[in-house]
């Protein structure tokens, strides 16, 4: 009966979204309040089953919302031999077990409620063949995100990607550190990548030639949106995607401009009077912009209305202090702005609360900068020197857990994507 009720709930939820038929569905698992539900990912049979299980376990682990429990060899053997798995799973502390099986057309998901000893959810996901590694992995990540939502009520961010700079080009990496690929080509030194809210278009800045470039990730086609004499820096799309806001200046300081994404003429928003004003980031409602400004003789984070009015100093300005604040990124829930603060290379990542201006230091190991929020508003990607070279790391701001996302040549300026569409 419970199972029927849950399935009925899933069906009722279907009209909410044409793309995600289980969106909003949560399985009522039983586990101790204040803890993360324990989840066992059961082995399965079929081509790619082991890879599938490994990716899923990693995605759930990286999500930091469930406790992925290892199935020891004895338990796995017992379950494989057809033993009653409920007491085994209960002994391991699992609130749920999950099994994903490859099918000819995709992936078959089954979720079991261990306490109630029932099947809680069954669903089939379309997926391309494994030979299409990128598409297949994206399908698995998408399944992981929906599974996380079913288990915890909050959708995961496994099917997201991170843009970053490496060796003067823009690169992409999946949220689990796999599928690293160069995106930008041609002349110039490319930096400061930013996502269109739809997830299929990016913008970045170029040095020599100095310009703002828009690139379609599907076709690879590029378009120069602004360019010429002076610097063209730090583009960012408005939350509706209709405009790009960027910083530009020649001999009289750098100011923040806006230009339609479809093309047009740049219009100045900030009035820096010869100071540097760069690195805009929008509040989720698109009404305010946080940015870095040196207008007081010292780089700090300010906010202003989207039309450039009502400028307000956000970070505390301490007279005589050598450290400066830069690289703001407004959290998706709108509550805080992450930024870097520090003197030269000795920087750390902090957040400041928009309501009470309280500060929270998030990093302390090595030098850390360039924070960018994941769409869940909980995880941050940033650049850290803690491993010896500048690499991308991911921080869970709730537990403080970190993981290294990239290795190899130095990187900078990450930008975490929105949740990406199915394709």
């Amino acid at each position: 009966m419970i199972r029927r009720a849950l399935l009925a709930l899933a069906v009722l939820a279907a009209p909410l979204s044409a793309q995600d038929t289980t969106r909003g569905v949560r399985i009522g698992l039983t586990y101790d309040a204040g803890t993360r539900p324990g989840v066992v990912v059961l082995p399965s049979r079929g081509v790619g089953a082991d890879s599938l299980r490994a990716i899923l376990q990693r995605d759930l682990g990286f999500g930091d919302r469930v406790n992925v429990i290892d199935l020891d060899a004895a338990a796995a053997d017992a379950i494989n031999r057809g033993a009653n798995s409920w007491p085994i799973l209960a002994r391991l502390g699992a609130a749920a077990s999950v099994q994903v099986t490859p099918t000819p057309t995709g992936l078959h998901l089954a979720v079991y409620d261990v306490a109630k000893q029932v099947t809680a959810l069954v669903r089939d996901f379309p997926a391309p063949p494994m030979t299409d590694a990128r598409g297949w992995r994206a399908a698995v990540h998408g399944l992981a995100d929906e599974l996380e939502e079913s288990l915890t009520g909050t959708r995961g961010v496994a099917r997201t990607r991170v843009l970053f700079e490496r060796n003067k080009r823009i690169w992409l990496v999946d949220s689990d550190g796999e599928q690293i690929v160069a995106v930008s080509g041609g002349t110039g030194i490319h930096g400061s990548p930013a996502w269109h809210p739809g997830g299929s278009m990016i913008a970045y800045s170029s040095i020599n030639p100095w310009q703002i470039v828009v690139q379609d990730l599907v076709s690879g086609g590029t378009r120069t949106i602004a360019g010429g004499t002076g610097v063209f820096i730090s583009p960012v799309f408005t939350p509706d995607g209709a405009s790009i806001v960027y910083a530009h200046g020649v001999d009289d300081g750098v100011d923040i401009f806006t230009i339609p994404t479809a093309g047009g003429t740049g219009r100045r928003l900030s009035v820096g009077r010869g100071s540097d004003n760069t690195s805009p980031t929008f509040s989720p409602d698109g009404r305010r912009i946080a940015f870095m400004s040196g207008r007081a003789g010292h780089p700090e984070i300010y906010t202003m209305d989207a039309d450039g009015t009502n400028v307000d100093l956000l970070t505390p300005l301490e007279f005589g202090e050598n450290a400066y604040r830069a690289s703001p990124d407004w959290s998706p829930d709108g509550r805080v702005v992450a930024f870097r603060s520090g003197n030269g290379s000795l920087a750390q990542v902090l957040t400041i609360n928009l309501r009470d201006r309280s500060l929270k230091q998030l990093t302390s190991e090595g030098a850390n900068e360039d924070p960018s929020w994941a769409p869940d508003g909980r995880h941050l990607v940033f650049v850290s020197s803690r491993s010896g070279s500048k690499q991308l790391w991911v921080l869970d701001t709730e537990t403080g857990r970190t993981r290294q996302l990239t290795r190899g040549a130095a990187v900078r300026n990450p930008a975490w994507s929105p949740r990406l569409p199915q394709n």
Partner: protein
Amino acid sequence: MTRRTLVLALMTTLAVPALDACHRSKPEPEAAPAATTTTVDMSAAQRRADSVAAADAARRRADSLAALRNAGADAERARVEALQTLAQKVYFDYDKDALRDDVRAVLDAKAAVLAANPAVTLVVTGHTDERGTAEYNLALGQRRAAQVKRYLVSKGISETRMATQSMGDSQPAVQGTDEAAYQQNRRAEFEAMNTAGALMRPRS
């Protein structure tokens, strides 16, 4: 007979018919033998004088060529000096765009060269060390280039003759993560354009 005498005698023998040929259209009266002897003696003296004059002329030509060569070398030296002055980098303190005294002296020399050579234009490129964010450094590099341009304008150089740009921290002059490397990288570089013709030394 010394070799010089022989040469003069040969020249005389050859020269006379040639001279005669020149005046063929205007017949000369026949000269007496005695007079001929005298003429030969006179010609020898004249030839010596001519020879000395020719040697003098050759020396003057050589001197003149050397002078020309010297003038060319001097023009080339002036050109090299001007280009070196225009290309000399200037350096900045950490996180600063202010011009230090040593930088002003270098820029004064550039201003003088630019004033003496009105066709020359200059691209000023600002650079930073690797510390700080990429975006901040791009803005800082632009500010450094703009400060340099502003100073040269204050010294009378038209702003239309100068363009500014920033490479931020993307093109370090030297690799390294110590202050010595950082100082080399916090700089403005200069590219002089329209320098194909002669370059004048500044008027002192």
